[in-house]
Each structure stands twice: as C-alpha cells, then as structure tokens.
C-alpha cells in the first residue's frame, strides 16, 4: 500500500515511514502543506496521513482542497487537538478518520488499513461471510455452520463492524468509536468484556475460532485457514 505522510516533525515522519515499511507499506514524506498537497494530487496514494498543523498550509485546508477537486483518497487526520469539536471539524473538512496525538503506532496502522480497504458507499455488501459465519445485514440474522446465532442489537453491530474489516486489526478505540459512538476512554476495558461475550456466542461451540485477539493491538475476525 502506498501511503503519503504529511507531517512537519521530521522525527515523527521518519518513525512513521520506518514503521510502515516494516508493516509492508510504502510511505512517502512531505514536510509542509504545499508540498503535501502537490504530492497528494499526482501521487496515486491509497491513504493520506495528514497532520493538522503544518507550515505553509494547514491540514484541514489540504483535505478541503483535495475534496473540492474530487479526490476521494481516504484521509486520516492527526492532531494534538482532541476535543469533540475539533474532531467534528476534521471530519467535516472531508477527513475519513481522526486520531489524536499521542497515538500508538498499532492504532494508526489499524486505522489506515481499515481506511484503505473501505469499499465505496455504493458497493457495500449486504452479506458478510467469514469462514462458515454469515451475517446478513438486511435481515439482521447471523448463522454459523447453518446454526442461527441470536445476538443483542449491540452485539450484532459489533460483529458487523468486525466482519466488515475481516482480516484487519480492529482496535478497542475503533470499536468504541464506531460501534458505540463514544470518543472517550473508559477507565475499565469494557470492550474486552463485550468481545468475550460475543466470542462465547460465535466461537464457543465450534472447533475453529474466528475471533482472534491481536496482542497489543486489538481484535481480528479471520478464517484461520487463510
């Protein structure tokens, strides 16, 4: 995956470039807003990582300009400003996701991978299939190995989100933001308990587990034979 990192702090930028390379991605760097915008225009990147405060041109303006020109490349906005209002501004400018500094690299990686593989709205599937687990988004039914599984509404949404990102790491924060729409950090790890409940429903009576814990990062739903 080709990633463009527009970040003015050299050390952060190089850390990201090195880490992304280790994760098998190719990252280019831009140190200021104008260079970043020019590179984003003709670079053919799959994901843009844009810092909010940049010299010459700020991050939100880059995203707005690109969106105004019809560029649909997914954008992850990085910012030290993390209040509700700042996030709303970032997303309204055309950003697809918003991550507050300081962040964990695993969190950033999970998010850009989710962004890069996000299908366009018109081609969203109505059925997700992972191994013998099937989730029907229209009838709200979940079936594994032919057996129906009864889920609470929130459990359904949790599973839906995990299956939409099947094969990708999904962090606890991503789940909290996308399934519960909370942007704060609960003191207890509530997500783990919800996951273990879900796991007991979809994995317990089956030989092959589908819902995996990725240590130090989050969770992933995946057919083990892949």
């Amino acid at each position, binding site marked *: 995956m080709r990633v463009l990192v527009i970040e003015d702090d050299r050390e952060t930028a190089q850390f990201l470039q090195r880490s992304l390379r280790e994760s098998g991605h190719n990252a280019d760097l831009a140190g200021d807003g104008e260079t970043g915008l020019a590179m984003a225009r003709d670079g053919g990147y799959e994901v843009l990582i844009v810092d909010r405060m940049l010299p010459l041109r700020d991050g939100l303006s880059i995203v707005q300009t690109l969106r105004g020109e019809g560029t649909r490349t997914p954008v992850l906005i990085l910012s030290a400003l993390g209040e*509700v*209002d700042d996030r709303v501004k970032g997303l309204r400018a055309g950003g697809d996701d918003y991550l507050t500094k*300081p962040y964990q690299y695993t969190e950033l990686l999970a998010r850009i991978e989710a962004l890069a593989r996000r299908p366009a709205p018109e081609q969203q599937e109505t059925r997700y299939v992972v191994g013998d687990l099937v989730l029907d988004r229209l009838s709200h039914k979940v079936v594994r190995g032919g057996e129906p599984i009864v889920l609470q509404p*929130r459990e359904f949404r949790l599973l839906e989100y995990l299956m939409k990102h099947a094969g990708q790491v999904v962090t606890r924060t991503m789940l909290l933001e996308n399934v*519960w729409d909370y942007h704060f950090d609960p003191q207890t790890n*509530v997500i783990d308990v*919800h996951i*273990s409940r879900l796991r007991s429903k979809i994995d317990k009576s089956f030989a092959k587990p589908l819902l995996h814990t990725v240590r130090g990062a989050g969770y992933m739903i995946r057919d083990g034979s892949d």
Partner: protein
Amino acid sequence: MTALTRLLLSTPFRLALIYMGAFILAAGLTVGFIAWRANELLTTSVVETLRAEVVGLREQYQAGGPARLSAIIAERAADPGSSLYLLVDSAGQRAAGNLRQVPPELRDGAQRGVFTYIPQSGPAQGRPRVAVGVLFDVPGGLTLVVGRDIEDLRRFAWSMGRLGLWSIIILSALGVGGGLLISRSVLRRIETVNDTTRTIMAGDLSRRIPLNGSGDELDRLAESLNAMLSRIEELMGALREVSDNIAHDLKTPLNRLRNRAEAALRSSEGAGIYRDGLVKTIEEADELIKTFNSLLLIARLEGGAIAESMERLNPASIIADIAELYEPVADEAGLSLSVAAEPGLTLTANRELVSQAVANLVDNAIKYSPDGRRVNGAAAASPISIALKRVDQDIEITVGDRGPGVAPEDRQRALQRFVRLEKSRSRPGSGLGLSLVAAVARLHGGSIRLEDNAPGLRAVLNLPVNGPNHAVPVHAGQLREH
C-alpha cells in the same frame, strides 16, 4: 498630572461646568428681561399719572386763566414730596413751580422723557435726582412741565439688579464648588478602582474593590468587577492547582518510568530484559498519556471552552447506552445493574461529556463494589442502581452501589483532582474520575454530590434541563433522535 488638573479634566467636573454655564446664561437673560420690562412698565404708569394731572391742570386753566393755574401750581409745589412742577411764561421766565428750569432733556420737542433735576428743598436738597416728566404748551404762550421723582424707584431697581448679579455670582461659585466636590468624590471612587486593578496587575489577585454600600451604579459596577475578579482568581487557582498536581502526581510515574528504562539499560542479561523493560515503559507512558488527557479535558471544561457543542437530547438513552456498555463488566464482577429512568425527559447538554461522566460514576461503582461472586454467589446481593428523574429544573442522575461508601468528612475531598482516598490507593485509576464528573457538571451549570446509600455510596449528578444558561439557542436540526 497633578491631582488638581486631573480633577479639572474629569468628566463630572466638565459636565458640571457646561451645565452651570447654560444655567447662568438662562438666569441672566431672564433677570435682564424682567428688569427691562419692569422699568418700562414703571415709566409708562408714571407718565399716565402725569397725563391725568395735566388734564386736571388744563381744566383749572380753562376755568381761571393763567393766574389760577399759577396759583394752583405754587400751592401744589409747596407740599413736601409732591410732584415736580414748572410753569414758564412766554418770556421764558419761571412763573411758578418747584423746578428751577425746563430740563434740557425735554426742551427739543420731546413731549415726555427722563431727566435729572436738583431739588431746591427737602432732605435731598442740592443733589441731582432722576425724574420722569411731561412738557406741554398752555394757550397764552405758557409752558407747563409736570414731573415725578423716580430716583427711589431707580435705586430700588438698581439694588434689585445688584442683588440678582450677586446671586448669580454666588450660585456660580456654589456650582463650581459643587461640581468640584462631586467630581472629586466620583474621581476618588474611580481612583480606588484604578488602585485595585493596579495592585491586581502587580500580582495580588485577592484584592477587591471596596463597596460603599449605597447600591448605586458605581457600586454595582464594582460588584460586577469583583465577581469577575473572583472568577479569574478561581480560574487562576485551578490552573495553579493543575500545575501543582502535574508536578506532584505526574513526576512520580515519570520517575518510575525513567528508573525502569535505566534499570533495563544497565542490566547485562540481554534482549529479554530489554524487551520487558520497553514493554513496561510503553505501558507506563500510555497510563501517563491517559492521565494527561483527563487533566487537559478537565482544565478545558473548567475554562468553559466546550459550551457551544450542547444539544437537546434524551437523557434516558444516555443512561441506557452507558448501562448497556457496562452491563457485561458488572455481570463479570458478579454485580447486577438496574436502571430506573423516568421516560420522556429532555436535556440540553453535550452527549459525549455527560456519557463520560455517567460512565465514570458507573465505573467507580463497579470498582468499589464487593465482588458479587464471593458473596454467596448471588449477584442481587450487591446491586448497582442507576436512576434518572426530573427534580424541579434539573435532571437528576443517581448512581448507587453497595460498596464501602465514603465517610461524610471525606466526600468533598473525593471530588478533588488526584485525591484517592487511602482505601482505594491499591486500585487502578488516576484519581481524576470524580473530578472530571464534577467539571462536566459545572460546565453544564449543574453539580455532583456524594451521599450515603445506606450502605454504600450514592453519587447524585444534577444537570439543569435547559443547559448552563437558558439563552442557549436550540435549533430544530440539533434535536438528536434516539
């Protein structure tokens, strides 16, 4: 600038001067006009009397000729305090009367006028006096002058004029003096405000503007300024407290982190130790970041920075969502979570912040409840209850547990930053949970209090239904559907 020039340049004094000038001008014009009119009237009425007398004299002349006229004039002129008379024959000789000669002011054709004469008898003898006279010709070449002394009237008018002048001078002096006095008192009160602000700027934030208790507009201004100063002092205090707390409570984990990294570096046992040390260092750093985030959020809330993002929402759904989020956690700890929410309530608030506040309360309740699994294995033995109801103009959210509770004397302290009561030191957490709830409550114009749940602790969060102030505009588009 000296005190005097400052006084003379002050707004109240200048206003007083302008007012005074206008007053004196108006008074002068009025007095002048009245004096002029009075003089006119007096002269006219005297002349009228003289005319009537002349008519009488003419009748005497027609009845008895020049001799009779002259006799009557001589007789009348002899009376002390009488009118003034002069009868002159055709040769220009005085025939009778108490005037020595025809006054020059009446000689050249003027029929009436004011003239001066010198009385030949009486107390004012020899001194010139003012009189009004009428001159007319009597058939037979005689000239008759009849006049009346108006010296006393003139004197009276003059003294009245002087009186008026003096009163204007005195009034002006009083006005200027009063203006100075008023401006000085106003100026002095404003000076105290200036002094106070200068002292405050120099660093003494505890100073306040003294009130004189009159409740006038300057007092009210001082009151508002004092209220503003208190708020600023409070904010500064909060800021100082934050920095003190950061210094005190963040240095400890930072130091721990540093020691751990140093120990790992010093160790000669190889990569495994390094790895462990780094993993722990990152964990510690993450905890620090969380604490920092909470602190920043509290500070921003207390600065009132997030007030614009309030919306009309349904508090029952907030409670239900948080209960749903925490239910598995409570269940795992062997606790039951019950929700009793009054339906149909609305609340103007920030959903995210109120959710976070309620989450913190529920989190605490779970953390401090005795493990339900060890108590007879019956979850109901240790329930956590969340209640929502309307009390007057407030939404009241209550989270109760059956844990050890908090002693009454510790309850206020438990709401402060970083305060972790001794009993809870061993449990995880930054000690910021409740103070965040308190900051959220304050931002919404509400409050948080801790009560005895007999047994256990009950946290009561009050939020005004209409938000921090009733002027918050609510647009139809802001209504959140749940």
